[in-house]
């Protein structure tokens, strides 16, 4: 997949900033975000609502409102190729083709009026024109995410599937185009713990088998500790701390990271009271 394994990382984000403009007001959603992602690596981005974690991930392929309501700056290099400033046509090939996304609520990400098979087929036809038998490819991709009876599911509509199955279908769709990077934006937040485990096991296997890189946006430190290689902690639009999982889980240098980990109730460690963020650490809104 990567013929020239130079020192160049698969994804290099430098000084990425996103500013929203509404009327005369400017809101900086993300500022100076920089990170690198090697092939096969999993980077977890943690932070609260409004910390800029989703916006900075969407900015990678400019899945944001157009200028002038949303201004981007900085650099995003995919295998050495600069994505910022690419034309819409070229970006459309990157979206889904090289960088695919799955979102928190599979139910709202899927189109309710088309069958699962049609929606996956659409992505395959768009990004892989060389594929002759699109239907077979759709069935194969559904089978790859461990959907039993993929032929039947391909003919079903999103509402006929459970949340876990919908998320599998979303993953199948994302993977059908053989992306190098999968951006998973809170992929299991809306799911039960047992289904969550199945989905995370599935992502771990796909990453192992395909050498795919994953940007995992989550606030679940349990998932991070078990699944990610690197962690970036976002707070008020900036990355305030980053490092390897072992490092961050062991010692946190930024007070926000410390506080965030401290306020999570843990199984088998009952406390009288939960720790909360101090006022200066709260994301003010």
């Amino acid at each position, binding site marked *: 997949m990567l013929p020239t394994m130079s020192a160049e990382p698969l994804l290099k984000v430098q000084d990425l900033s996103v500013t929203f403009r509404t009327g005369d007001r400017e809101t900086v959603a993300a500022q100076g975000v920089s990170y690198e992602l090697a092939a096969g690596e999993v980077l977890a981005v943690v932070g609260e609502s409004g910390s800029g974690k989703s916006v900075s991930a969407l900015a990678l392929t400019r899945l944001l409102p157009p200028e002038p309501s949303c201004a981007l700056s900085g650099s995003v290099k995919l295998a050495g190729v600069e994505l910022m400033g690419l034309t819409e046509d070229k970006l459309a090939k990157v979206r889904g083709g090289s960088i695919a996304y799955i979102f928190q609520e599979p139910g709202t990400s899927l189109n309710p009026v088309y069958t699962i098979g049609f929606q996956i087929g659409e992505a395959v036809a768009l990004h892989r024109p060389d594929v002759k038998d699109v239907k077979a490819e759709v069935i194969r991709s559904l089978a790859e995410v461990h959907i039993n009876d993929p032929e039947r599911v391909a003919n079903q509509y999103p509402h006929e599937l459970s949340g876990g199955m919908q998320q599998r279908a979303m993953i199948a769709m994302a993977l059908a185009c053989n992306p190098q990077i999968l951006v998973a934006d809170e992929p299991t937040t809306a799911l039960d713990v*047992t*289904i969550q485990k199945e989905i995370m096991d599935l992502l771990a296997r796909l990453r192992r088998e395909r050498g795919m890189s994953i940007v995992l946006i989550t606030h679940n430190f349990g998932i991070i500790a078990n699944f990610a290689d690197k962690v970036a902690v976002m707070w008020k639009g900036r990355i305030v701390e980053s490092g390897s999982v072992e490092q961050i889980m062991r010692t946190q240098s930024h007070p926000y990271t410390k506080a965030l980990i401290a306020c999570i109730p*843990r199984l088998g460690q009952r406390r009288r009271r939960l720790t909360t963020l101090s006022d200066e650490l709260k994301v003010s809104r």
Partner: protein
Amino acid sequence: MSDNLLEVTGLSVHYPGRANWFFQKAEPKKAVDNISFVVPKGKTVGLVGESGSGKTTTGRAIVKLAPLTAGKILYHGQDIGVLSNSDFLPWRKKIQMIFQDPYNSLNPRADILSILSEPLEIHFPQMTREDREARCAELLRSVQLPAEHLRRHPHEFSGGQRQRIGIARALAVQPELIICDEPVSALDVSVQAEVVNLLQDLQEQLGLTYLFIAHDLAVVEHVSDHILVMSKGKIVEHGTPAEILGNPQQAYTKTLLAAVPRF
């Protein structure tokens, strides 16, 4: 026996199955199937299970938001399951509910004052408008929001603040039992900790009793005095948090615990 605020025996909620082509009755869907449990006064009983296990339906059946197929719901020893909706009204004041989604459980067109006054108008019709307004301001303060926010609308608040407003609305009529249906699962972890602490503080101050429905085992362990584990409409296991987490007996509970990623 008198220590139990709520005693549920043989509670079932069955929904009719879809009739097939020959109009033969299909098997009913057993959302809740013959469950029994007690909620002691001043305590928190946690109810865990996956989506579709019947935990939400159980909570809703207690306040007549889901139809009862069979069973007894004794509140202070009186069967409230058999009451008609109008006869149940005085008990609605005693049993309140907090919902999961703070975005959908508040009327977007009403300001906070009218959201909080509505239950007061129904249950305390003798209250004057000034009294109601004073009470609403007090309620906001009790959930740690400034009283000036009474004139604001739900969209002006964050998720955590909205959930506080939901709690204030439940507290308005001075209930004894609050059924909390996934009250923190839609919130960020830091906000979740604040709301959990608030619920515990209120319990201490007001002597409240909670039925705490959630799928997050760590949160349920933290708040509960007793835990019920539900699967497929039945209570498969119950015990103290230490018993359930330290020594789970049922395969389902073990699966549920094993699925929680630890760190």
